[in-house]
């Protein structure tokens, strides 16, 4: 137990840029996101992530939003387990046809007002997979999309930028 506490204490707070001002951009961005969230959702926004056929690359980077460097929850943005708790659906993948109904049902289950973000090239435009017997292509071919974040996969920074973009477009 002592080792554990020692490691926690010696690691300190790595969340940027409180200790590391190099990624100042990130903090700027986060603060701006929070301002917009405050206006729309009283300080908090709940995101339900839906993998609709992604290769899992986007999921890895979305995970990284929750690591101690990015710690996206400090801005009031958190990931929830059910679409019924969500304000935003963050959808990845070229919508495999086998996931089409599941995505539609998830969309239906999300209460209004809701926003949809298509994250990654596949979700934004079909990416490497496009439209085929197995894929519907871009998420916007299946449900209304408010915002697309390109990238293969988008970096955590790009994902935060995308969230900001969504808030702006809602003004």
């Amino acid at each position, binding site marked *: 137990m002592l080792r554990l506490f020692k490691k926690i204490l010696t690691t300190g707070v790595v969340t940027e840029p409180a200790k590391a001002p190099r990624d100042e951009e990130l903090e700027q961005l986060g603060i701006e996101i929070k301002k917009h969230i405050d206006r729309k959702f009283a300080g908090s926004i709940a995101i339900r992530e839906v993998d609709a056929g992604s290769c899992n690359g986007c999921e890895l980077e979305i995970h990284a939003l929750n*690591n101690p460097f990015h710690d996206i929850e400090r801005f009031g943005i958190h990931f929830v387990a059910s679409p019924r708790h969500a304000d935003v659906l963050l959808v990845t993948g070229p919508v495999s046809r086998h*996931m089409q109904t599941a995505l539609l049902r998830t969309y239906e289950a999300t209460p209004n007002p809701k926003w949809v973000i298509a994250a990654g090239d596949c979700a934004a435009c079909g*990416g490497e997979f496009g439209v085929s017997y*197995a894929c519907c292509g871009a998420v916007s071919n299946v449900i209304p999309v408010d915002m697309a974040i390109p990238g293969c996969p988008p970096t955590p920074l790009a994902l935060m930028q995308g969230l900001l973009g969504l808030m702006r477009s809602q003004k």
Partner: protein
Amino acid sequence: MSYSNSSWKVDFLKRANEAGITVEQIHNGPASLWQIVGSDWQRFAELALQQNLRWAAGWAEQHQEWFLINACFEREGRYVLLRTRVHNPKPELPSQATVYPAASRSERHTQDMFGLNFVGHPDNRPWTRHKAWPKNSYPLRKDFPVQGEPEAVTPPDKDYPFVKAYGAGVYEIPVGPVHAGIIEPGHFRFQAVGETILNLEERLGYVHKGIEKIAEGRTPEQLARLAGRVSGDTTVGHCWAACMAMEQAADLSIPPRAALIRGILAERERVANHLGDMGAICNDVGFAFAQMQFTRLRELWLRCNAQLFGHRLLMDRIVPGGVACDVSGQAGIAIKRGIAQLKVELREILPALDLNSSLEDRLYTAGFLSEDTAAAFGALGFVGRASGQDFDVRRDAPYAPYDRLTVKVPVETQGDIASRFWVRHKEINVALKLIGEFIDLLPPGDLRSDWKMPAAGREGLGIVEGWRGEIITYVRFDAGNTIARFYPRDPSLLNWPVLEKLVLDNIVPDFPVCNKSVNGSYSGNDL
């Protein structure tokens, strides 16, 4: 390079002959290509099992009126590619799944995609096909257009006949395809009594993207990009296997510098994924300290990737003929500095975990996979190696650059979640050592060989040790430098079925940690 039949192959051919199975030896490449008649397909498998061959992969391809069916076997690091031909319009073949459970889902996939009937298959339900295409049409046949004829909205596959359990107090829990976490989609059907899992059935195929179909007609560069997206966490592994297969087909050797850089990339991918998994395993039993520490280390590692290689996950760094990135002397120093730093951190964190009794309580004995079950299902990578399966392509069938040095392969027989955790840790140490050695070996020279267009019909088999285990990728070329057939066999195909076994008699709330300890790829499985 010359290849000859190693001792077990000579002996095996003799036994096959005695059993009345005529084996036509087509060639002895890195994998010997043997052809038999279709009626001997199952009997060959019986002999293979008796002779301790491991069933490793299976796929088909269409040539006009004929189907070629392939099965890949391995023993002592030597591979055999077994092939037979069956004729359309009523293609059928005796099933090997009756002999090798590992072949079951692969044969079901081939049935769904080609309409080949495996006679006597113990489980003839569809696997990859849900409702995106009709029952009697087969996407990988040449007359099936890549666009298909999909409905506006593909209906859910709600009539799949799951195994049922009856009895007082038995209940069923359906989970997915959309899960609670940020993970890939798939369906799990539990039968439970109280908290104890009586049976688990996986229903995958939700992220089927038609990868094999849309690969057809691509150029080598385009195929490498697609292969890098078979499973995003294994982008280096799959891209390497596909490029190796294409280079074999084109009879192209890559510069030694490129091979070493590929090795560095693959080991960096292994370390990044193992770090993520070790944190996530602890997180699934509510131990946030480890999750925070390991995600921090992973982020540092990925930032180093972005800085030195231009991509956090290392996508598209491997290209046909070589690599698209270099490791300068300065970069080599930076990588070594990162390794030294990671080692110091791990030395501080791991004792804190090892001595934590609440973590021990949850990880030891949970999710036990016996050596026998692991062997029967051909479990690969750290899942197999935590259950006594002493196999690693890098050591047992070494390819450049691993053929230049010794690869230590950690093996345990404990078979539980803790073992899969600690095997990952040992593999990180091995990988860190390898990266350092590769950097020291880096000679000056080219990063890429000029591509040579392979003749129509040329084929190649790329076999590499991805971070999850052995990846087998088959490629055949058409005329004009285009791909006729691409089949990547992700290790997850063989590791998913063992998850159904290792959760038995565990409690339902332990399923997430059991699942994470295996961490199969949904995308790599569904293709």
